[in-house]
C-alpha cells in the first residue's frame, strides 16, 4: 500500500487556498492523482543537497534597471476592453466586504 500524502480534506483546503472550486467527484479523483504524483516526487528526497545553493534563475542577472522615463501607456478604453463587467471607467469587482 502506497503512503497517502494527501487526504481528501487536505485537497479541499489547498483548492480553497488556490481559489478553485472542485466538484465532489473531482475531489476524489484529484486526491488519488495527487497521491500518485507526490509518490513519484518522493524520489528527490534521497538526493543529498547539503551545501547546494538553489537555482532560482539560470541567468545571473541582478537588479535590472532602466532609466526612469515616462513612455505612453495604453488608453483606458483599451485596457478596459477585455473586462467582463465594468461601469464608466472602472472595473466592476464582486462584493469584497
Amino acid at each position, binding site marked *: 500500500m502506497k503512503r497517502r500524502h*494527501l487526504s481528501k480534506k487536505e*485537497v479541499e483546503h*489547498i*483548492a*480553497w*487556498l*488556490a*481559489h*478553485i*472550486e*472542485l466538484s465532489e467527484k*473531482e475531489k476524489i479523483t*484529484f486526491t488519488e*492523482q*495527487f497521491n*500518485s*504524483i*507526490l509518490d*513519484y*516526487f518522493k*524520489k*528527490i*528526497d534521497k*538526493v543529498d*543537497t547539503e551545501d*547546494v*545553493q*538553489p*537555482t*532560482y*534563475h*539560470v*541567468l545571473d*542577472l541582478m537588479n*535590472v534597471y*532602466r532609466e526612469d522615463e515616462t513612455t505612453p501607456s*495604453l488608453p483606458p478604453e*483599451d*485596457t478596459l*476592453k*477585455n*473586462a*467582463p*463587467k465594468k461601469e464608466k471607467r472602472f*472595473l*466592476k*469587482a*464582486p*462584493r*469584497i466586504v
Partner: protein
Amino acid sequence: MPKLHALTAKETVEKIRSKEATAEECVLSFFERIHRVEDKVHAFVTIVEEEALKKAKEIDKKVSEGKPLGRLAGVAIAVKDVICTKGIRTTCSSRMLEKFVPPYNATVIEKIKEEDGIVIGKTNMDEFAMGSSTETSYFGPTHNPWDLSRVPGGSSGGSAAAISTDEAILAFGTDTGGSVRCPASYCSVVGVKPTYGLVSRYGLIAYANSLEQIGPMSRDVYDCALFLSVIAGHDPKDSTSVKAAAKDYTESLIGDVEGLTIGVPKEFFGEGTNEDVEKEVWNGIHKLEELGASCGETSLPSLEYALATYYIVAMSEASSNLARYDGIRYGYRIDRDNGDWSTVYSKNRRIGFGAEVRRRIILGTYALSTGYYDKYYLKALKIRTLIRRDFENAFKKFNVLIGPTMPVPPFKIGEKIQDPLALYMCDVDTVSANLAGLPAISVPCGFTDGLPVGMQITAPPLREDLMLHVAYTFEQNTPYKNRKPPLK
C-alpha cells in the same frame, strides 16, 4: 514547380524578391491548403485571412515600388495561441481566455512584422501550454498529420501540425519543458528551444517563467536559423532578456562536423525508452560519426531527478502566475456573481480552467505552502543546481549532447490523458534543457511504423550556432526532410 505552400521560407522570399510570385499568391495558397486539410488536422484556433491578405498586398506594393523587403517577406507564419497578437484573440486554448483580445503585440510579433512576415492564424495547444499532447485544449485536440488517430505532441501541437501539413511555413512554439521539441519530433519538423533569455518573453502569457522560451519551428534547419535570427535579441521590456549581440544564425550552417565531439548521456536512453526510437537515434549518431564527428558515451547522474524537479518548479510557478485569472480585468466570469469575492473567483476558475490546469495550480499551491516549501520547492531548486553542474561538466568534454527527443513514438489520442503521471513521463528527455536554461533542437531522424522519430541536440548556453551547425549537417545527409505526411 512545387506548390507555393510547399516552399520553404528561404525559397518564398527569393520568389517574391525576384517577382516570380506575389506575396498575395503565396498567402492565398496557404488559405486554400488550410481549407482543404484543417477539418482533419485542427491545427488552428483562429485564422486571420483578411488581415493576412492586406499585409500581403502591402508587401507586393513594396515590390512594385522597388522598396527593400524584410527577411521574412511574404512568409506565412502561424502563432501559438499563447503569444499576444494585437487585435487577434489569444485564448491559450482555454475557456478562461476564449474572448481575450490583446491590446498589444508580443515583442516577437513586432519583430516578424518588421521583417514583412505575415501572421496567418493562431494555433491550437494544450490549455495554458500544460501538456504534451494538445489534448487538453478547450477547443478539442489537434490530430497528428502522420496518423490522424494519434497526438501531434504538445503543447505546441497545432504549430507543429500546421508546418507538417503545409498550412504554414514557419510557426511560433513555446517550450517550458519540451513543448516545442516534443511536437516537432512527433510531426517530423524542426523545433528549437533557445537559451533562456535569448528571445524576449514580453507578450508571452506566462506559465512557468523561469523555464519557458518562445522557439521557432519550421520544415528545415535553414528556416529555423533564419527565424531565430529575426526573433532573438535583447528586449528592455523583458527583464530576463540576455544582452547578447544580434547574430545571423544562417551563417553557422556549415555542412561538416569534422572534429566536433558529441556526448551521448546514458540517462537519455533510460527505462521506458522505446527500442525503435533508440535504434533510430543511434543510427543518427553513427551517421554523424561517419561524417567526421567523434562520439562518446557519458553520464549526467542528476538527470534521474530532472522530471520530478521540473514538475515541482513548473507547478509552483504556475500556481503563482495563474493567480491573475480572477475574471475581473479579463477572462471568464460567471453571470450570477452576486456572491462574495472568494466564491465568485473560485467559480470563475472552476469553469474557466480545465482539469489539468486546475491540477497543476492546486499541486503548485501545495508545494509552496508553509511546511512543504523546503521539502518540495526549495529542494527542487537545489537539484536544479546539480543538474546545471552536470551539464557544465559534460560540456567540458563535448561540444554537444545527443539523445532522443521523445522516449516513445506518438501515442493514440485518449491513450494517456486519464493518467496525468503517465503523460508527464513523456517529458523525461526534454525538461533538463529548461531546468539548465540550455538551447536544444529536435530534428527528424527517422520513422518507426510510419511514425516520426526526433533526435535532440543540446548545446552550451548561447551556442545555438553550434547546435544548428550539427543539426544542419545531419539534415543535409539524411532523407527525412523531404518526407511528407500522407494527407492529401
